[in-house]
Every structure is written in C-alpha cells, then in structure tokens.
C-alpha cells in the first residue's frame, strides 16, 4: 500500500533534458536569477549595514566605475579574464584543472626571480624577453606534471592540481626568505626594480589590458575554428569517440594542459611585471579559483567570459568601496558573501536552462 503511494508520488514530477534552448530563453532565465540574487543580497545588505539597498547598489557602481577607480577595475577584469581564458581549454575536455592559482603564482615567481637575478645585468628589452620566456615555461611545467600523470596513469587531476597550488605558495615563501633576508612577507619594487613593462601612451596597465585582449581573441579563434579546438571538444564529449576516430587522447590532454599553463604563466608575468612589481604568496589572490567559476558561468566561451568576469570584478570592487565607509562596520570579506550568493543563484539557474520540469496530472486523475 505504502509502496504504491510512493510510486505515484515519484511520477508526479519528472525531469527531461531540453533539446535546444533558444538564446533569449537562456538570457531571460539568467536575468531572473540575477534579479533574485540582487533581492537576497539587498536584504542581507540591509540587515548587516542598515543601508537602503538601492543606495548600496549606487555605491557599488561608484566603486567599480567612477573616475579614478575605472582603470584599476578594467585591469582587474583583464587579469581575471586572462586566468579564466587559461583554464578554459582544459575544462572543455573535462580536465578539471583547479591549479590555476599555483600556475599563476609559479609564473609570478619565475618573473620575480629573473627580475632579481638579471636586473641591471642585461638590457631591459632582453630581460623582458627572458622573464616572459621563464614565466611561460614555469606555468607550462606546473600544468604539465599533473597532465602527464593524468594522461598516462589516470591520476585524479582535480586533487593533484589542488595540491600543486600549495607547493607553489610555499616555493614563493621560500624565495621570499632567500631574496629578502629581513624576513618580510613581500619582495617589493625596491628589489625588483628592472624589467617593468612600459606604460603605453602614458596609461598605466594599458600594456596588460592589450595583451589580455589579444589572448582572448586568439583563444576564441583557436577553440572554435582550429583543428586543435575541435579535438579538444571531441575529447571532452567522449574519450572513446576520440580514440575511435584516431585522435591521440594523451597527446591532446598534455598539449592542452601546456597551453593552459602557459597562459597562466603569462597572467603571473603581467601581475609582477606590469602591475605590482612585487611578489608575495597572496599575489594571485584566489583568482585561480574565481577563474574556474568565471569560465564555467560563461559556458567556456571566451567572449562571454568578458561579461561573467566583469560581474565578479564589479562585486569585488563595489564591495571594496562599500566596506571602506566606516559607518557600515563591515570588512572586505563582505564581497565574498555577495559573490557567493550571486554564484549560488546563477549556478542554480543552469538547471532550469538545461532541463524541463513536467508536472504529471496522473495522480489527480487517479483520485477521481
């Protein structure tokens, strides 16, 4: 008796995958999710700070886009975008590289090492080339180690790359201890005083922004219009299919991971050589993890990523401005809570884009 009731109940709702989802439907669902997230964030802001949510939103916009704060926001967007672009090709083949943080940091380390050891000994242009090469190489090595084990022995890449992050962090700590005998936690511009990337047209950060813009466009072309990009997609969809049509899966995994590591290395290079001119173990600042969410939210499309990255940077910069106002009594971690809530809603709304819920009326008919 009880079982048959349960049986009926199970059939009340069933779920099926949507065949093809129109773009407008996708956008509408996401906008609704974002609106709901805003409502929840507004309530939380009201509870925590007592401020009218609309005014809080205005302060967020001010913090992200107003006057002097605009350029750093764009730069922040560029760096986050760079890391997101880096993790995209490996994610497309379902290689869950969560080690971007470590790959960026090791790129930073290689750059700082070159600046420290070669600065002043070789011409500036030569130093820039050498440090770029080293940063890219370091990122590639950091990504290649887990990839080789994944390709050869199917070692779990998620856990492997996660651990590599902390090895990289401690390597930087080691470098700091050696480079600066005073025992401080950063090595700053006084020591790393060579190999700074030029200010293009007198605009700070413009060099970084242009480099990232070029990488983004190239990656879009690579993924969508090249043979390699096609191979990545096939491996991601089904390894067996890939093998069957003659794709060397191991080669594709390692090659793609090398590409991913190289771009992470570039992100590290830009951070040290074109932005901070200093190094500490927190320089990547969690961007390696945020990039995973940015890339996933954009469905691994480099162009869409500009917008998803902008959303997260907006929250970060806005909350930064908001929490600087002392009367609210909040600290910088407020940004993380808002980011978390917005992410929950966007992650959740994917379900309604990909699946359709059917309400079966059979049980009602049964009663009659």
């Amino acid at each position, binding site marked *: 008796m009880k079982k048959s009731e349960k049986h009926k109940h199970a059939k009340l709702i069933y779920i099926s*995958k949507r065949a093809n989802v129109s773009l407008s439907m996708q956008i509408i669902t996401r906008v609704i999710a974002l609106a709901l997230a805003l409502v929840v964030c507004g309530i939380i802001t009201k509870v925590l700070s007592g401020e009218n949510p609309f005014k809080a939103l205005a302060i967020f916009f001010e913090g992200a886009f107003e006057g002097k704060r605009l350029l750093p926001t764009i730069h922040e967007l560029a760096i986050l975008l760079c890391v997101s672009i880096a993790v995209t090709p490996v994610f497309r083949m379902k290689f869950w590289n969560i080690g971007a943080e470590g790959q960026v940091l090791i790129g930073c380390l290689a750059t700082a090492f070159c600046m420290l050891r070669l600065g002043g000994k070789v011409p500036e242009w030569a130093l820039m080339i050498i440090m770029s090469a080293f940063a890219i190489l370091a990122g590639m090595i950091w990504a290649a180690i887990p990839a080789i084990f994944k390709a050869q022995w199917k070692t779990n890449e998620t856990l492997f790359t996660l651990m590599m992050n902390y090895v990289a962090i*401690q390597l930087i700590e080691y470098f700091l201890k050696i480079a600066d005998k005073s025992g401080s936690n950063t090595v700053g511009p006084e020591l790393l005083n060579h190999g700074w990337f030029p200010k293009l047209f007198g605009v700070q950060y413009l060099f970084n922004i242009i480099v990232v813009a070029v990488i983004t466009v190239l990656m879009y072309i690579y993924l969508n219009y090249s043979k390699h990009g096609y191979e990545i997609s096939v491996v991601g969809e089904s390894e067996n299919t890939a093998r069957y049509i003659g794709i060397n899966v191991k080669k594709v995994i390692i090659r793609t991971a090398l590409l991913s590591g190289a771009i992470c290395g570039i992100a590290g290079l830009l951070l040290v050589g074109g932005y901070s001119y200093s190094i500490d173990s927190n320089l990547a600042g969690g961007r390696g993890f945020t990039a995973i969410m940015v890339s996933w939210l954009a469905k691994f499309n480099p162009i869409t990523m500009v917008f998803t990255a902008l959303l997260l940077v907006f929250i970060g910069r806005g909350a930064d401005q908001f929490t600087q106002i002392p009367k609210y009594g909040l600290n910088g971690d407020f940004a993380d809570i808002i*980011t978390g809530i917005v992410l929950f809603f966007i992650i959740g709304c994917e379900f309604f884009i990909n699946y359709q819920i059917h309400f079966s009326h059979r049980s009602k008919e049964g009663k009659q």
Partner: protein
Amino acid sequence: MNVATLLIIIRRAILMGTPLLFGAIGEIITEKSGNLNLGIPGIMYIGAISGAVGGFVYKSSVVYVDPFLAVFIPMMCTILGSLIVSLIYCFLTITLRANQNVTGLAITTFGIGCGNLFGGSIIKIIKSNVPFFAVGDIAKEYNKPFPFVEYLPEKTPELIKILLSYGFMVYLALALAIITTLIIKKTRIGLNLRAVGENPATADAAGINVSMYKYVATCVGGVIAGLGGLYYILGNSNGIWANGAFGDKGWLAIAIVIFATWKPVYAILGSYFFGALCILYNYLDNIPITFIPLLKMLPYVATILVLIIVSLRKKRENQPPASLGLSYFREER
C-alpha cells in the same frame, strides 16, 4: 631535541591534527557518496564561526557559565551552521545537478567570507584593541580532561598522561573515525553508500535511493567537518578567533583524504602526521629560517606522492570512488 620537547610536539600535533581529522572524516563520508565537496574549507569556516558566535552570545548573556550549556550551545550552533551550508551544496549539486567543483568553490568563497565578516563584526562590536575576540570560558569546558584523569597513579608514563589530557572532542574524533570505518565496511548502509559513489546508475537499478544517500552523506560529512572548525577555535586556539587564522587548513583536510586513501582509520595517522608537520618548525632548533616553507610544503608533496603511487599501483581498494565529482542524471543513462 630532548624527550620533553618531543612530548610537547606530540601534544601540539594531536591538538592541531584533530580539526583536520574531523574535516577528513567528513570529506571521506561525502566522497564515498560520489560528491567531491570542495566546499569543505568553507563549511569548516562556517562551523568555526557559528560555534564561536554562539559561545560568545551565550557567554555575554549570562553571569555564570553553565558547563553543560557552554558545551551544548556552541556545538548546536556549529551543527546548524554547517548543516545549512551543506544543504545549499546538496540542493545545487544533487537536486539541480550543478557542477560540483564550481559549487564547492562558491561554497568555500561564501564560507570564508561569512567567517571573516562575522568575526570582524564581533571584534568591532566589543571595540577590541586587538584583532581577535576570545571565548576562553567556553574553551575551558571543551578542553577539560575526563574526571578520572586526576586519579591516575603518580607513576603513569608521561606519554599516557599527555594522551589522556585532552578535552572530549579529541576522543570523539577518534571514535567517529572508527565508527565511520565500521559503517562503511560492515553494514548494508555502508555498502549502499559505496555503491552510490562507485556507480550510481547500478545503485539506482538495485533500488537504492541515490539522491537520499548523497544528501545524507554530504550533510553528515559537512556537519562533522564543521565540528573540526569548532575544535580548531575552542581546542587548538583556546577560544581565540582571529580573522584568517584558520587559513588553508580545510584544504589540508582534503589532502588527508587522499593521503589516507579514503579510509577513516588511516586518516587518524594522516591527521596527526600533518598536524605535526604544521607545528614542527616551532620546536626545531638550529634550522635556518629559509627551511620553514620547505617544511610546510611537505604535507602537500606527500599527498601528491600518495596520489601518484595509488594511481600507479591500481589497487582496487585504494582508488577514489569511481563516480567522484560527477552528478547523476537518471534520465541520461
């Protein structure tokens, strides 16, 4: 290094290892159901801050701190806090079938944010000059040894005295590790749980309620991990909450899961070993300061080596659950 230092190291290593052990047991239960919960660091943070806030509110609202309530209230707050976040994770990954890595990382971001925001608020409320707040009275109850320890004979070896000197949470963690092993290995529930983690489609066909197992395993795992966060504050730090002090310990707990090859009993050894590595540099004389980062790197390198060796040897019982990290869609088989 003499015997006295060694004993201190053992004492501190177990204090530091216990939060990791809670985290590792929680993550093992979760992963056995096929959910790779990367939100564990965030959940431990939430567990820590809810317990600390609960204790703080209780302590500030009464004159006399009742020993039972001092233990009970923070623990309930921790359980409630970590349960709510675990449910968010479950709802997103199991019901809404979202990507586990992305959801887990979002939970971690959210959890660490919550911890530091509320920690920071309390520090501001009490207008503290120092960047932390303390719930020492509460911590005292958590660190009280069992009453019979006082009556140990004089001649008891120092090591045994130390091993019996902790509050109840250390032994609770050990008991949980053993109980979890027994449940996973010896009971039908454990068998079903492993089936869900290895191959949910088969488990579903055999009539196991896959979603329910995943929900319960992830929530129980989350709550246990949350207790780890609580013990870090009340046991290891003596009730002092400082923003960011918990650091990346949550990731260490995930490392221990791999190190222990998904076996809670091995996780005991793993946690104490990692705990020792975390504090060892405080007690080593004559080592150059440059070596400390290399020492701190050891747990992660060891974990990588275990991961590699496990995958090279291909022994069935040491592998991660086969469907780890994948959502289960019944309609997509």
